[in-house]
């Protein structure tokens, strides 16, 4: 081990490949699917599905491991964050199955993604009255014979439409077995697409990432096999975080793995805006002098240097959190640091880019305004800025969630 910022050849190759996809497959249709909200980008979906089924043979040899996954996410979100979220994959639902599922469950739910028609996975956590406060979940599950019966309404479910509609997909639903047990009663359940009782009742109209479907799903006596519970059915009333149950804890571990990717997605959107801005400035003959003395700097130079510093800080925090997973280290603190920083940075960078570009930045002729709209979700989903600050604060203060909330 040694401190190094040299990407492995594999990472370079992956970056190049995904950047080409971003340029050729995503950018040309980015505005279209922004305007045609809720429309499935069929051609892109098929392209990515085929691509995913035939991984390029060149990616062997030393790898940057999870950092490479982050680089991939950054490149594709540099292309378009909404379309990225539309890529058929098990997504967060898959991460939950991978983190908390048995081998049998992994095979049953994830193997279908190896071939056939495009499929999606999704995770359904949020409810109208339970956002950051997962313990407030009202959706219930109870056992009837050999089946779990789910009842409740889930909102803000990314890819919820696709996952619940297309064969082979599934939605991982968080529900409580016992409301009185708080977090200890919360379990996650795999609901396959088209399961009777799971209904798509709405799609959100959003500020940005309009190519991505954000669904409201209702579960009405939705029955799934007993074997679709992830982790154990035992309700621990004490401290579920220390109870060794793969249910809630596994689901939480999912976030440690997903937050670096989400942070990398944010970095991708930020880089899109920054790359474009720098290109425009260059066209206008405005150069950025990194070593100009302070009294000579223009406001734009300082802004751009700020943006570059902030974006790179976010990227490096992201890669660090990712790298810790490769090293088998717990990255709960670092993943939240990366997510908090990246979400904030991309919001600010894209807003600043619109400002510096002036009338061109505000116009929908260009994509700068779209990146600003897309960016803001990174401050909100997968744990808001505030939730990640809270996690970081608890860790650095060595406080439990009951001591600091």
């Amino acid at each position, binding site marked *: 081990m040694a401190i190094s910022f040299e990407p492995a050849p594999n990472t370079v190759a992956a970056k190049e490949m995904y950047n080409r996809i971003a340029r050729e497959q995503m950018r040309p249709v980015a505005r279209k699917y922004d305007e045609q909200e809720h429309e499935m980008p069929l051609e892109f979906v098929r392209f990515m599905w085929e691509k995913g089924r035939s991984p390029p043979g060149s990616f062997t040899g030393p790898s940057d491991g999870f950092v490479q996954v982050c680089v991939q996410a950054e490149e594709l979100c540099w292309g378009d964050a909404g379309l990225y979220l539309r890529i058929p994959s098990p997504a967060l639902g898959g991460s939950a199955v991978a983190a908390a599922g048995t081998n049998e469950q992994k095979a049953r739910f994830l193997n279908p993604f190896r071939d056939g028609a495009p499929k999606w996975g999704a995770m359904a956590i949020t409810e109208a009255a339970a956002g950051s406060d997962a313990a407030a979940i009202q959706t219930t599950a109870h056992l009837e014979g050999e089946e779990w019966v789910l009842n409740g309404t889930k909102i803000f479910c990314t890819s919820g439409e696709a996952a619940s509609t297309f064969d082979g997909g599934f939605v991982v639903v968080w529900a409580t077995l016992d409301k009185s047990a708080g977090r200890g009663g919360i379990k996650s359940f795999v609901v396959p697409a088209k399961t009777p009782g799971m209904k798509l009742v709405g799609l959100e109209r959003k500020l940005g990432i309009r190519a991505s479907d954000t669904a409201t799903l209702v579960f009405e006596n939705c029955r799934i096999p007993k074997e679709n519970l992830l982790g154990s059915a035992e309700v621990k009333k004490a401290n579920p975080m220390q109870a060794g149950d793969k249910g809630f804890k596994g689901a939480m571990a999912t976030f440690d793995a997903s937050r670096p990717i989400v942070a990398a997605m944010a970095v991708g959107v930020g880089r899109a805006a920054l790359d474009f801005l720098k290109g425009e400035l260059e066209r206008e003959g405005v150069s950025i002098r990194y070593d100009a003395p302070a009294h000579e700097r223009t406001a734009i130079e300082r802004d751009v240097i700020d943006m570059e510093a902030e974006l790179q800080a976010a990227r490096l925090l992201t890669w660090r959190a990712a790298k810790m997973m490769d090293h088998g280290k717990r990255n709960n603190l670092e993943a939240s640091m990366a997510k908090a920083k990246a979400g904030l940075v991309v919001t600010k960078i894209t807003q600043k880019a619109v400002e510096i570009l002036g009338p061109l930045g505000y116009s929908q002729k260009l994509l700068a305004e779209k990146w600003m709209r897309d960016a*803001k979700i990174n401050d909100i989903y997968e744990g808001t800025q505030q939730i990640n600050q809270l996690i970081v604060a608890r860790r650095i203060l060595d406080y439990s969630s009951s001591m600091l909330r």
Partner: protein
Amino acid sequence: MIDFEPSEEQQLIVDTVRQFATNEIRKAAREADEAAALPAAVLERAHELGVVSSALPEAYGGGGARSAVTGALAAEELAYGDLAIALAVLSPTLLALPIADFGSAEQKKRWLSRFAGDRYLPGSLALVEPAFRFDPLHPATTAKRDGHEYVLDGAKCFVPWQDGVEAVLVIAAEDGEAQGFLVPRDAPGLSAAREKNLGIRALPTAELWLRGVRVPASEKLGGEGARGDSAVREILNRGRVALAACAVGVARAAFEIARDYAKERQTFGAPIATRQAIAFKLADMAIEIDGARLLAWEAAWKIDEGRDATREAAIARHQAQRVALEVADGAVQVLGGHGYIREYLPEMHLRNARGFCTFEALSLV
């Protein structure tokens, strides 16, 4: 004597406009934004309230109560309802006020009584240009004298372009000095394309091309031979004060939604407003909004005093645009996922607020 209390008449205007903004403008805001279309009936009713006509000279049927401070008070309230609709309500100021202040007798006679008339008549002003290096005092759009006419060439953007606009005040450089020209909507050589922007979507704005547009020399603002450089400076200052006031209104609207949501929304058994992270954010919003408002008032007051308000107007706009963006962004953040969806208004406030750093002279006080 220093004082921060509106006069009784001003307070009456504030109360009236606020009520109108809350009851009529706000309710039409979301639909107008989604449809990218103005609610015509609301504009007519606003006109009946006399928001603009009260400021026009009595000689032409106006109320004669011209005051930039009053204008700023009204603009804040209108924008508190909705920015795009507010700018539409105020668009008559774009023609009427420059003509009232700098127009020739003939121009005043021709236009002012119409703006003070029974029906709402939108106005338009073409200042901003679609270029990175745009400088309002040195526009790239040119006006060249040719006999008894001026020939205008150039491109403009963010030009309010409502149905019913009859003429637009085009700011162009004559011998390097910015001057205003009254150009009819149907002037040969003038073409307009509706813009799509990040925000103020309900307000029809156009990108305007002027290709050899000819207007009689008497259509120069102030009439033939007038020097309009100071008029353009005045328009900029009045525009910036109006923008600052509107930015305060947008910020206040976003703040109130966030405040109310935070008191309502429960997590871990208590409203999120009881968490310091949220409560302090709301406190900062309130402080910044009040500070920006006072700066806008000061700049407006200086204009009313007839003093050079360039610095104060620039500072007020500078501060208010920052505050509006931060407050709107903060409101989205307070609402979390609900802030990101178009069922709630903060995302619209965020899109609108981001424009204040770029807008110029979208309405005047």
